[in-house]
């Protein structure tokens, strides 16, 4: 692209919209205590099933809880769980991927066998199997997300590191007698940082989708936590009577995932990494 400012990525309109949406989501999540008009869990049964009005901009649900407040706090829940899971997946996956690629041999063989197996369990199935074993709740969801999204990271990082291990600068560092940890930090990490960033961005958006899906099924965070998927699940039965409780959280999930997808596409483009299909 022949731009007069080659250091600045060319930003198209959809990308700009994505970045703005993501910024709005982040601001709402961080500023929730100040932005939300009511506490998310205050029950007021006299005002149940209110349509949107000046008092309750998004209406209220069956317990009279303010839907706008719950949607805003729901962003906190979604972002905290997703970011925590994505960070852990990428850090742990990156670490294991580097070790496995560097050590090679039987360790590599066994790890990859297990990873192939984990990847062979369709996403939601693995999540449900874990939930059956461990029950629901935020820590379990984060663990389940890490267990199901980390293997993909390990695979990608291992393949990337394997390309670098035989190269001259690594061989030279080895011959200089540098410690393995130094080689990893100083020589390898700068080279795989771009891949790690792209993996993080991609997985963050998939994890938001998975978390909301799991909560929708009723196996995510426990009520009365204001989670978008859980809100859709709770308010779906009264879809006809009061669609507000279902529609606003759905818009919230959709805009967050759209913005994450757009931004991660852009990050991948900037680093020149081909973003493949969902793995």
């Amino acid at each position: 692209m022949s731009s007069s400012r080659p250091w600045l990525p060319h930003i198209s309109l959809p990308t700009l919209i994505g970045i703005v949406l993501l910024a709005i989501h982040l601001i709402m999540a961080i500023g929730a205590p100040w932005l939300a008009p009511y506490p998310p869990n205050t029950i007021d049964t006299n005002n149940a099933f209110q349509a949107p009005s000046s008092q309750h901009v998004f209406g209220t649900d069956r317990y009279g809880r303010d839907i706008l407040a719950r949607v805003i706090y729901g962003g906190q829940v979604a972002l905290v769980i997703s970011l925590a899971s994505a960070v852990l997946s990428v850090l742990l996956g990156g670490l294991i991927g580097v070790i496995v690629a560097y050590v090679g041999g039987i360790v590599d063989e066994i790890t990859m066998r297990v990873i192939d197996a984990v990847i062979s369990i369709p996403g939601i199935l693995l999540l449900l199997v874990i939930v059956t074993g461990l029950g629901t709740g935020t820590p379990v969801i984060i663990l389940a997300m890490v267990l199901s999204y980390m293997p993909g990271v390990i695979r990608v990082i291992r393949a990337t590191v394997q390309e670098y291990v035989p190269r001259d600068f690594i061989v030279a560092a080895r011959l200089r007698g540098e410690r393995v940890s130094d080689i990893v930090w100083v020589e390898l990490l700068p080279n795989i940082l771009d891949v790690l960033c792209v993996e993080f961005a991609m997985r963050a958006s998939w994890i938001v989708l998975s978390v909301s899906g799991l909560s929708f099924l009723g196996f995510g965070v426990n009520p009365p936590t204001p989670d978008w998927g859980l809100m859709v699940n709770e308010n779906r039965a009264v879809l006809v009577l009061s669609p507000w409780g279902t529609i606003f959280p759905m818009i919230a999930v959709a805009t967050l995932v759209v913005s994450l997808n757009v931004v991660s596409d852009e990050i991948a483009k900037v680093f020149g990494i081909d973003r493949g299909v969902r793995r």
Partner: protein
Amino acid sequence: MASYVFGRCFSALVTLFVVAAIIFVATEVLPGDVATAVLGRDATPKRLAALRAQLQLDRPASARYMDWLYAFVQGDWGYSLARPKQAILPLIGERVRNTLWLSGIAGVIGVLLSLLLGVVAGLKRNTWFDTLVSTLSLIGMSLPEFVIGSLLMLLFGVIWALLPAVTIVQPQATFTALFPSMILPAVTLVIVMVAYILRMVRSSVIDVAHSDYVQMAYLKGVPHRRVVWHHIIPNALIPTINAIALTVAWLIGGVVVVETVFNFPGIGRLLTSAVSDRDLPLVQALGLVGAVFYIGINIVADIATLWLTPRLRTQYWRVADE
């Protein structure tokens, strides 16, 4: 070729063995007493003891795992805990039938539609059609299945009331009785599938259209139509076989949510109710069934790719001959 197929199937069996172990470990060996987990904290000691005996919890986990796997292969899938006296195999059987109908319809329509849209979008790159299709697919990818499903249900099931919003027929119903209830779930699955495959097909078509041999064909004076049908499409579709397989395999996961949204009586709906009931044997069996399908589809895709790509095939033969 035969040795490749054999080797691929063997490695799939090894993978399946590990998958079964993961499912078993995740559901049974994890912390806490399984019997308490299933029955709850206030269960009577007598019932706990009975369940422990039924699940043979006094034996080591490795022995139970081997027994479970051996019985599974022989077709003895045990009994459901939450549905007393209900054998798992026939229970799953009729649900698998319904899910196969649903995902079969969705899969065929979804694959054909995404190939069509993806090829056209790729050939007409940067036109309004391409922009529209690409934007819609990005939106489709970003909407969770339950959002798409609920929106369709609201529009076609409630507001316009054209189709049943939820399934109320029995799981044993015939295809014709079940068909109206299948439309909305199938459309939901198609939308998500198309969003994913289309992007792959489009970028693959663009890659091939810019390759040297396509440029060469144009320079030789081969008509555009012939270049498209004989040079671009066949070469662009082969790399997408794996993407299609991944997405079709994703269907197995997607049906879990979609069936729950529409209360469709398939294995997905059965799985979510088994998880709520903490019905371990049923969850284990369904997990394994899902994994078998998933691995099977991927083997088919790998073999199809090899079969359709002479370059890869001869490469493999050469390696095998050496």
